[in-house]
Structure formats: structure tokens, C-alpha cells
């Protein structure tokens, strides 16, 4: 009889979202995978036997580890051994989306957001956390989280006009 560890299904569901959040939290992009791995393994060892782990715990662990690693001298040595690669926010999403002008503009606009608004937006939209869960993850009040989210959406609305219709990138607009 074939069996599969439960963590694989869990990771298939949440792995991409965790990586997206970790890439924002990491001081260096190459730290993102290490952050997700370390945070996920620690939390799964503690609670994995239940078969279901709240993603909030892992997001919170990622954030705390990112802060610790930013201060750590050991991590600096690890980073120095790696090849540093810069990636834009658009690169973190499926490449097929780059052909869509409005969606690309949206992601570029998200990248322009202040980090504190971007992390709230990421946790709300892609991690699908509630405001309460985001507040616990980021150690903020519910009201602060909600207002940052509103500000972020307001800026996106302003920066990406509705008139920018969905069409392949580079294709001239019909008059």
C-alpha cells in the first residue's frame, strides 16, 4: 500500500505562499528558501504529528528567523559563500503572467509599496490570512494591519489605472 507523508500535501498547498513571504522578509533573496526550510521544519517537528499545522505559525517563525538572521554573523558567512541574485517581485510569480500588461503593472506597483504595506498585502491576498492572524504574525494591532492594507490597495488603485486593460504586453492599444 502506497502512502505519502502528510507534510507533502501541506507543503504543496502553502509552500509557494511561504516562499513569497520569505522573499520579502529575507534581507537577501537567497536566504528565502533557507528561511522557509528552517521555519517549516521547526514547526512541523513540534506540531506535525497532528496532521495539520496552522500556516500562521510558520509565517510567524519565518519572520522571527529573518530578524535573527539579519543580526547573525554566522548567516553573513553563509551568504558570502552564495552567489547573490537580484529578483523583482514579478519574478516571484508564474512567468506566463508577464505577458499580461495590467497584471505586470499590478505586480510592479506592489513592489513599489512600502515594505510594511507589502507584507500585509502579501499575507492577506496570497497567504489568505485574516487580519487577526496577520496581526499575530507581525506583532501588530488589528487596526494597524487593516489600515496598512487599505493604504496599500488605495495606492495600487491610484498607480494602476483601470483603463490599463488586460492584453499581451507590448501590443499597442487600440484607439
Amino acid at each position, binding site marked *: *500500500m502506497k*502512502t*505519502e*507523508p*502528510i*507534510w*507533502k500535501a501541506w*507543503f*504543496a498547498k502553502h*509552500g*509557494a*505562499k511561504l*516562499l*513569497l513571504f520569505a522573499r520579502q522578509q529575507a534581507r537577501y533573496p537567497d536566504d528565502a*528558501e533557507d528561511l*522557509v*526550510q*528552517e521555519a*517549516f*521544519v*521547526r514547526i*512541523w*517537528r*513540534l506540531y*506535525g*504529528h*497532528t*496532521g495539520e499545522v496552522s500556516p500562521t505559525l510558520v509565517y510567524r517563525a519565518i519572520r*522571527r528567523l529573518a530578524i535573527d538572521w539579519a543580526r547573525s554573523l554566522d548567516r553573513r558567512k553563509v551568504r558570502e559563500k552564495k552567489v547573490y541574485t537580484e529578483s523583482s517581485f514579478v519574478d*516571484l*510569480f*508564474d512567468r506566463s*503572467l508577464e505577458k499580461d500588461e*495590467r*497584471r505586470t503593472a*499590478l*505586480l510592479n506597483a*506592489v513592489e513599489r509599496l512600502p515594505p510594511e504595506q507589502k507584507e500585509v*498585502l502579501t499575507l492577506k*491576498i*496570497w497567504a489568505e490570512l485574516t487580519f487577526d492572524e496577520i496581526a499575530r504574525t507581525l506583532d501588530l494591532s488589528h487596526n494597524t494591519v487593516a489600515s496598512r492594507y487599505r493604504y496599500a*490597495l488605495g495606492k*495600487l*488603485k491610484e498607480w*494602476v489605472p*483601470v483603463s490599463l486593460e488586460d492584453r499581451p504586453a507590448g501590443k499597442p492599444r487600440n484607439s
Partner: protein
Amino acid sequence: MNEIEQLEKELESLRPKEPTADFENRVEEALGDSGQLAVSRLPELEPESRCVSAPRGNLFSIPVFFLLGSAALVALIFSFPSSPSFKSGTDTSVPADTIELTAPVVAQDSLPVADDSPINGVSTEQLSAMSAGWNEPQAQEIFLDFSDEGIVERPGMNPARRYRYHFLDETIWVNPETNTLIRSSVPRKETLLIGLDPF
């Protein structure tokens, strides 16, 4: 739908890139044994796995357990001679086939014999004769429950989280000819320690 809701819908439709297979392999290696824990122990995932235990199945599949079953019968028989009703032979309530089974055991030639019989005083031929008609024993490992006993300190080592699992090892011998069934249930505990890396 207002403009903000439309914007949220558009953002939600964008999918972040999936982790690479290499990265998942790294995570799997880092998880080690704790990655296998939830699969092997959760009954609702694989209900049939509770009733199957390969290593124990191999152990029980050998004829020794026929012999052990027979030994249990022999032990039962040895207790009968002290019964007055049995000695007199007038107790008609005892089924005929039971009396036939006891006959070779109480006979004079039931003294210790020099063969490979696992039971003192009963030859392998006698055991084989008594084992006739018994099906292969069925062994089951029944998962009962588990408990998380929290974090325990280990001298000179990192602390560990301790889980205790409760099982019931059940073996059933069936003789369809005599419509007889012997069931053995033995409770068993397993303790699992998962080492922790302190934050």
C-alpha cells in the same frame, strides 16, 4: 463589485511560483523522521494500515504459533486429571472430540522425549496431529491512540518531544473443522522521541 474588490480579485488571481523539486527534497531531508510521523500514525489516512503489520505478520506466519496454540490446549488438559468427574469417565457433558484430544497427553508415553518439540512431554508428531485443521494465524496490529507528553530534557543532549503510542497486538487462530477460535490480545506501548533544535 466596486473598484477595490475588483483589484483584490485581480491580485488573488496571480499565482506565486511553486517551490522547485530540489527545494522540496531539501525540506524532506531536513524533516527526517518527523516527516514520516503523521503518515504512519494517523488512522484516518490509512485505515487498513492499522490492521497490517508486515514484520509481525512474518513472525506469526511460522508454524510455531500452531504449536503454541496446541500448548495452550495441553496446559488445559493437564488441569483435567485432578477433576473427579473426568477420572471417573462418567461426565457425559464433555464433548467426545475433547476427550479424544486429551488421550495422547495423559498417556504413559507422555514423558519427556528427545526431539525438537518445544513443549516438554509432547512429541512433534503429537503436536502436528493436534495442529491439523488449524488455519494460518492472523496477526493484527491495532492502533488505539497516542498522546503528546510534551518536551522532555535529556542529559547532555537537546531536549526532545515525547509521543506515546498505544497498540493492541492481536492474533487469532481458527480451526474451521471444529469451529474453534483462539484469540490472543496483548497491549503494547511505543515511545517516540523527536529531537528539537532550540530557537
